[in-house]
């Protein structure tokens, strides 16, 4: 152990006296803090969207109830069109009284943008089919979405390994080329332990400074409370594990006993393949094998349902008018019923299309889940988004919660609309509320995957590195 510590101390002192490693570490720390700041700005924007939507809902509800009270008091003279009448259950449930389902940013949301810039955090649930409200996008410049932002996940997955590699790639080869390796091997009783100590110093520097910067940044930008969450423990573990993976990789390549330039080129190539090419390849392959469904099918199904329902309604109305010649064709009652009929027809068909689409997307995800083991970078990226609560898991939880709430909402409004019962202020108070938070807990959903996909290769590489170090020769 003392040999290990001696190596560690000596290497730490050497590192401290060189300028380049210090600069690289400083840049890494700076970028980490900047990314957390950018994340905090993003979270604030998201939170504002949610707040604004909730405020809008509250305002809309009080306006509706006010109008309702006026109608009750007989203060509204002219006849309201059904689509503006707060008493009309068909139109109220279908839009006027739409309920906001919001996904508030998780405590560590600043760590990864994930899907948060694409998936809308606010959905206005109505009794209509889901295609009508589920796909309302937030506005953003598509070029911004394409390029992504400087979030912590990016810094960790792409920049952090490069700094680790820059510090660790030539431990053995550098000593050999300077001629000092012969001295080390000649004077140490367990040279491999000394070398391991030196590698530990070089690995510890970037890993520890990144972890420190993340802790500091989270404390500043997300508040010290965020540090006490389980998510933060997950975040720190992922960063540590991913860092160790690259250290072990560098050690394994260095242990092969080739020159520094071989190590540098091999490791850079490995980084390009693992962090850049494999994710791209996996995405392309998954998209090719199981293409994302054409969401237009959903819309077309809803439209087809509408025309069919229209036609049926026309026939029904024609029969009705034969027996009730005094009824007006364009009356409020008829419009409400027509709308309800259209909506119900669309609901059934759209639900089945969405179910088919989900199955298709599940197949795509399953393929990605299998292929993701080839790229520890992709694995880490996904895990970071999960911990931040901006990954697929939480959004799918949100969507599931919306589906459940949608049914609840319909159960409340559709019977009332079918019966043509006018809504009252009491109905407005009793209308279902969206409580999604329990269904959309933030969680690190794949710790097992992570250990298997990252821990196992790390162990194997570390073993290779140890063997290489034990066998090293001075030239």
């Amino acid at each position: 152990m003392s040999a290990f510590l001696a190596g560690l101390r000596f290497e730490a002192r050497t590192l401290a006296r060189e300028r380049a490693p210090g600069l690289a570490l400083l840049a890494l720390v700076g970028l980490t803090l900047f990314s957390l700041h950018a994340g905090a700005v993003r979270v604030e924007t998201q939170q504002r969207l949610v707040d604004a939507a909730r405020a809008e809902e509250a305002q809309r509800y009080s306006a509706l109830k006010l109008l309702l009270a006026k109608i009750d008091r007989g203060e509204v003279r002219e006849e309201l069109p059904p689509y503006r009448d707060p008493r009309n259950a068909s139109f109220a449930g279908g839009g006027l009284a739409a309920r906001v389902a919001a996904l508030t940013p998780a405590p560590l949301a600043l760590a990864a943008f994930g899907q948060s810039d694409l998936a809308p955090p606010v959905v206005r649930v109505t009794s209509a089919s889901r295609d009508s409200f589920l796909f309302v996008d937030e506005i953003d410049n598509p070029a911004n979405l394409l390029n992504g932002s400087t979030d912590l996940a990016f810094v960790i997955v792409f920049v952090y390994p490069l700094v680790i590699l820059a510090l660790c790639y030539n431990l053995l080869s550098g000593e050999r080329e300077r001629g000092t390796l012969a001295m080390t091997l000649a004077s140490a009783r367990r040279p491999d332990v000394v070398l391991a100590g030196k590698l530990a110093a070089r690995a510890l520097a970037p890993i520890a400074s990144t972890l420190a910067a993340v802790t500091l940044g989270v404390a500043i930008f997300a508040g010290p409370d965020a540090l006490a969450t389980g998510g933060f423990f997950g975040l720190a573990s992922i960063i540590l594990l991913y860092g160790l993976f690259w250290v072990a990789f560098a050690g394994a390549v260095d242990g092969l006993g080739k020159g520094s330039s071989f190590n540098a080129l091999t490791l850079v190539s490995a980084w390009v393949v693992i962090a850049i090419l494999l994710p791209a390849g996996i995405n392309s392959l998954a998209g090719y094998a199981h293409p994302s469904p054409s969401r237009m099918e959903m819309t077309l199904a809803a439209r087809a349902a509408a025309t069919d329902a229209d036609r049926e309604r026309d026939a029904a109305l024609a029969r009705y008018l034969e027996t009730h010649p005094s009824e007006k064709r364009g009356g409020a009652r008829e419009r409400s019923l027509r709308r309800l009929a259209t909506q119900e027809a669309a609901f059934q068909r759209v639900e089945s299309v969405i179910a088919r689409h989900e199955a298709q997307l599940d197949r795509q995800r399953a393929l990605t889940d299998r292929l993701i083991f080839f790229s520890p970078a992709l694995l880490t990226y996904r895990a970071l988004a999960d911990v931040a609560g901006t990954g697929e898991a939480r959004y799918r939880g949100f969507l599931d919660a919306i589906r459940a709430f949608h049914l609840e909402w319909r159960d409340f409004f559709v019977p009332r609309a079918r019966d043509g019962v006018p809504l009252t202020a009491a109905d407005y108070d009793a209308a279902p509320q969206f409580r999604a938070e329990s269904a959309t807990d933030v969680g690190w959903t794949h710790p097992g995957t992570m250990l298997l996909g990252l821990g196992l290769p790390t162990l194997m590489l570390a073993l290779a590195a140890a063997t290489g170090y034990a066998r090293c020769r001075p030239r």
Partner: protein
Amino acid sequence: MSDLAPIPAASAARAPGRASIVRAIAAKELIEMRRDRRLFALFVFTLVLIGAALGFGAAENLRLGRERSAAAEADRQLWIGQGPKNPHAAAHFGQYAFKPVSPLALADPGVNAYVGSAVWLEAHKQNETQFRPASDGGVAARLGGLSLAFILQTIAPLLILLAGFGAFCGERENGTLKQVFSLGARPDELLAGKALALIAGIFALFAPMLVGLAIALLALSDASKLSLADQFIRLGALALGYLAYLLGFVFLTLGVSALAKNSRAALVTLLAYWLTNSFLAPRLATDLTRGLAPTPTAQAFRAGIATEKAATFGHDETHPAFLAFRKETLAKYGVSRIEDLPVNFRGLQLRKDDEIGYAIFDKHFGALQASFDRQDTLRASAGFLFPLLAIQPFSMAFAGADSRAQFDFTTAAEAHRRDIQNEASENIIHFAHDEGYAAGPDLWRRIGAFSYDAPTASFPLAHSGPAITGLTAWLALSLSFALFAARRQRPL
């Protein structure tokens, strides 16, 4: 040494041309590159990647093309299949407009994953496009797929700098530079020769890619729907743009190699720059443009339109603007009651309301696109320093896959929506004599389906000013840097 006969007279005739010297240098560099097994393997690997990207791109384009034309056909049937109803009800049902896939999007899908491809053309209202494919893709998909543009923008520069980082400093370390200089070779000639060799390498990648793309274009584009000649002009522009991008990397690599203390320093410098250009600059540019030229939130944008639309009457017959319009119309026809009008008043009312709406939508959607444009210009303005910021918008523009192309599509779709509204209102004005008026399939058939003519290559050219400036400046700067560095260097 036994043979003391006169030494044979070699090189008695000094070749005057510097060109032959440059050629000789280039030839030697190419032989060295070809015999460097690792470099060669890398080159072959890149070619395989190019093949894969072409395949994925073509398959995706085919699939999207089939999907969208099928959807357009299905939507047409729904439109025509409407029963007899009031034309305005039909206008509410509306049509869908689907964006045809640009053939060159197989090389650069650009922002296609981040914009909707369908827009609902309904009464009263210009809708935003729907269904961004990226929303379905998951977090992993945000790291992007394998496209030709990605390979050219990211992998090709890496290949160049790995092939060229030792061009000068490597020879200096080997001691050959000393000899080369002692022979009287000029720095410019050395630079030109080494650059030529790297450019030859680029062409070796370009040639199969261009041939593959040309074949894909010929096979996949429907010549009846778009001009093949125009696609080839776009392809030519793309080739020129990428040539400028990669040429800049050739010069930068050689310049850094000439100035660097040793090849390790050159490699580290170039890799750091490559990383910044490929990954850091685009993301920082996003954060910066979002801060400097913010775009409205969806809620603010929709509220802005709603506020202005509230000034119009729509179907609200108690609205002051409605009352004013009724008075004006009655006066115009010289009658005192709506029933006495020779035409249908409801049609007139719809037409008037739409006309006011058009101006409002033009203003707001135009302003939204202008805010995107401001961000894009800002992003491209650093293109001379980090050329990815210039080549990316250039490439997307000529591939027909940028936000401008999207805007052109939505504008065309909106024009079609207005045709539908206008025809429906005209029909009501002239034929609706009572409340129960219903038009039939004849009218639905007469109102055409949306068909989109993508703009010609002059359209991206007109909108690529900042990107072209950036690329030109990048090329000029890197060339000047390489000349400066090559002339300054010493062989020791």
